[in-house]
Each structure stands twice: as C-alpha cells, then as structure tokens.
C-alpha cells in the first residue's frame, strides 16, 4: 500500500488524533505559561521560603523523566485520592514539566531587562506589582520569545507520550493502525510528517509573528 492509498483510507482517524494532539498542545501550553510565570517570579523573590518552593518545583520537574511524572499523575495520585481522567492527566503532566523549563526562561527574561528600567519605574513611585507588570514583564517577554518558540516545539513533541496512558492522540492512532494493519512505515511515517508540519508550519510561524508584533510594540521593527 502506498502512502497515498494509506492516507486516503485512514485520514479520518489521523485527523481525529491530530485534533486531540492539538488540544493537548494548547492546554499544556497554557498551563506551562502560567506555571512558568508564577515559578519564575517566585524564584526572583526576596523571601527564601517562596524562592525555595519554586526551586524545589523546578528541580523535581526538570530533573526527573516526563514519562515517570505522567505515570505518577495518572496512576499514583489516585492512591492519594486525586483522580484525573487520562486526557487531563496528559496535558497536566506535559504542562507542569515544560512549565519548569519555562520558569527559567521567565527568570532569565526578567533579569535581562536593564536595571535602569527598574530605577525609572521606582523613581515614578510605582508599586512593586506595577513595576513588574507594566514595565519589566513586557520587555522581558520580547527577550524570551525566541527560546519559548523552541520550548513549545519541545512541548508538542512531548505530547506524544500521553498515548502511553491511552489518550487517543496522533501517536495513539498511529500505534493502533499499525497494530491492526502492520503498515508500520506508513503509519509512523505519516505521524512523523504531521508532527513536523504542526511544528514547522504552525507553531514556528505563529511565534515569529508574535515576535514581530512585540518588536513593533517596542518600536524596534
């Protein structure tokens, strides 16, 4: 069976799987951004306890395997009374893991804003929250967008792991069709192509566009 015949036969299944992958990607991305922001800001706190919480979180989620974290969230947390359905467990694990990496990007982005910007905002008597939110973060964001583009592609590829807890994503569909037809080259070949197209022609151009918008806002374009 050629790849074209394969696509003609199985495209509805792949489309469904791609939809689930897209949903996992978007939800995990939103979670990762939220966590990265909170953990990144906490890591810059003057309070040692707050900083400690953030450091511990980052260490655990960056220092251990995403697959193990996924299994923990799906199989072990229920033993402690927290039961998540597989779809939720999937994006929560991916989001929490990549959020830990993102926290370092947030911290680095904030620290890359020149000290003079803090001082100017301080001299205007702005409150610490407003200094951060209105002056520092918008500038930090521009600096950290390029590495975030990389991180999101990493995140997309990592969502394939959720197939291991039977979330019916793109990878799950490919495995299923492979299991019933033994057309391995076509099934996994198509999966490869879809992941690549998703990353290369959707995520990357979107991030480029966002960078352009932010640059224009800074008047740098």
């Amino acid at each position, binding site marked *: 069976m050629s790849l074209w015949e394969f696509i003609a036969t199985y495209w509805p299944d792949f489309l469904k799987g791609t939809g689930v992958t897209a949903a996992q990607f978007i939800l995990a991305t939103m979670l990762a951004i939220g966590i990265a922001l909170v953990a990144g800001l906490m890591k810059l706190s003057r309070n040692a306890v707050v900083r400690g919480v953030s450091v511990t979180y980052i260490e655990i989620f960056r220092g251990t395997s995403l697959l193990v974290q996924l299994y923990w969230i799906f199989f072990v947390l229920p033993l402690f009374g927290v039961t998540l359905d597989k779809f939720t467990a999937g994006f929560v694990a991916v989001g929490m893991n990549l959020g830990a990496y993102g926290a370092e990007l947030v911290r680095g982005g904030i620290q890359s804003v020149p000290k*003079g*910007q803090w001082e100017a*905002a301080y*001299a*205007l*008597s702005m409150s610490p929250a407003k200094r951060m939110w209105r002056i520092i973060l918008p500038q930090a964001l521009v600096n950290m967008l390029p590495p975030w583009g990389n991180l999101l592609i990493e995140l997309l590829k990592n969502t394939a792991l959720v197939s291991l807890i039977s979330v019916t994503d793109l990878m799950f569909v490919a495995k299923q069709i492979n299991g019933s037809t033994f057309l391995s080259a076509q099934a996994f070949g198509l999966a490869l192509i879809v992941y690549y197209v998703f990353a290369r022609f959707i995520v990357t151009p979107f991030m480029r566009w966002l960078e352009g918008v932010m640059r224009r806002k*800074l*008047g740098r374009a």
Partner: protein
Amino acid sequence: MEDMSQYPLELTGDNIPMVRFMNVTKRYGKLTVLDRLDLDVATGEMVTVIGPSGSGKTTVLRMLMTLETINEGVIYVDGKPLTHMEKNGALVPASPKHLRMMRSQIGMCFQHFNLFPHMTALENCMEGPVQVLGMSKQEARKRSEDLLDLVGMIEKKDQHPSRLSGGQQQRVAIARALAMRPKVMLFDEVTSALDPEVIGEVTNVIRDLVDKHNLTMLMVTHQMGFAKDISDRICFFFDGSIEEQGAPDALFGNPQRERTQQFLSAVKEAG
C-alpha cells in the same frame, strides 16, 4: 546601633529647607562613600554637585531618590523624614510604603534616560500620573502634552524612544519626571551620555525650568559652564564629603581649598 534621639521627628520653625541631609553616612562594606554629610537645599534653590568620580556625588542623588539606603543619619524632605518614619515617638527605618509616599515628591532624570521602550513619548509621561496618582487618562494626557510642549517634544509625542535621539529622549525623560509634579527634581549627569551637539537642547530645557518654575533642584554634572550659569550654589565633593561650597562666582572664580583648585584647573585643561 545609632542613637536616633539626636534627630528631630520633623523639622520645625521658619525656613524649613526642602531637603536636609543630617549626618548621613553611606558605606559599601568597608568603603565609606559618604561620611557624615550635612547638606540643606532651600525651597526653589538650584544646587549643583561637582567633584571627581568616586567622590560620592551621584550617591547623594540616589540616596535622596531612596534608590540607595543609608547607614547613618536622616534625610528630611519638606520637613518630614524620608529615610525614616515615626513609630511610638521615635524614628525607625522607613517602610516601603512610607518610602513610596515620600519619594513621590521627588523626580529624577538619569544619565541614560531610562525611558520605557515599549511606550511612546506621551505614554511614558502619562504612566506615572495614571498608574501612581490615579489620574484619568484624559487629564494625564493633557498634562503630559503640556509638558512635552514645554520641552519641545510635542511633535514627537507618538514616537517610541528608539526613534528619538539621545537629546530628545532626555527631554522626554524630563517631561516624564515633571508629570508627577515633584517638589524636588534630581538631574544625575543628564548630559554625560549625549553627543556634544545635542547637549544644548537639554541644558536649555533645564535653564528654562530654573527661570520659570520654582522647583527645588539638585544636579550632578560635568558641564562646569552650565553649572556656573544656572546654579544658586555649587558643592564640591571630595572623598565622601563636601570639601567646599558657595556661590558659583566665588567657587569657580576664587576657590579657597587646594583640592578645589586642583580639580577646577584639571577640568579646565580637559576642556
């Protein structure tokens, strides 16, 4: 611990200075940058601080802006303690809230302008009034446009800082500081990062302020001619304290101390 009872809770009587440094000491580790500084600046007075680098002159401004803490002494602004506050009849180090309230009376312009790059000139000026003073956008826009007009930047109000020259950026920065209606303005080497041909446009704005407004100003500069023209008083700093101070004509024309003479002749040679 320093005995705080030697400092009044607030200044009383006639002729309260707008700014008073009382016995202020600043150390970085073992290095004493300022040693028991006493300095008064009267309301409406323009005082210029000169001196070799490392003499502590910029630190004076930064302490007044509360960008630097002090190790000993008290700074008063408009009769009220800035670096300290009253608690149970005694002075204690100021809380962040007290500092924020007090420093809203002080405006500062920096050597490197420090305009917010993600905002236009107008938005830079409106930021403080809207976000800190709680002014309506309409009112803040009016005030900001008036000030941008004052500094000759009204035509560029919708430009981002990256589109402006250094001199233009510094003029916007002056307008931004003035938009908070400070009682005291601080100018920290505001012409040092500028190309020679645009220094004049910034000094002219400051000259204008001195002539037409009754602002109390404290300036650090290397432009001796400019300082001589517009200052009411010059303070020569050396090694963390005031070596000599006086009216511009006296200090520049007839310096009494040897270090002042050496510094001024070195500056004159450099040109």
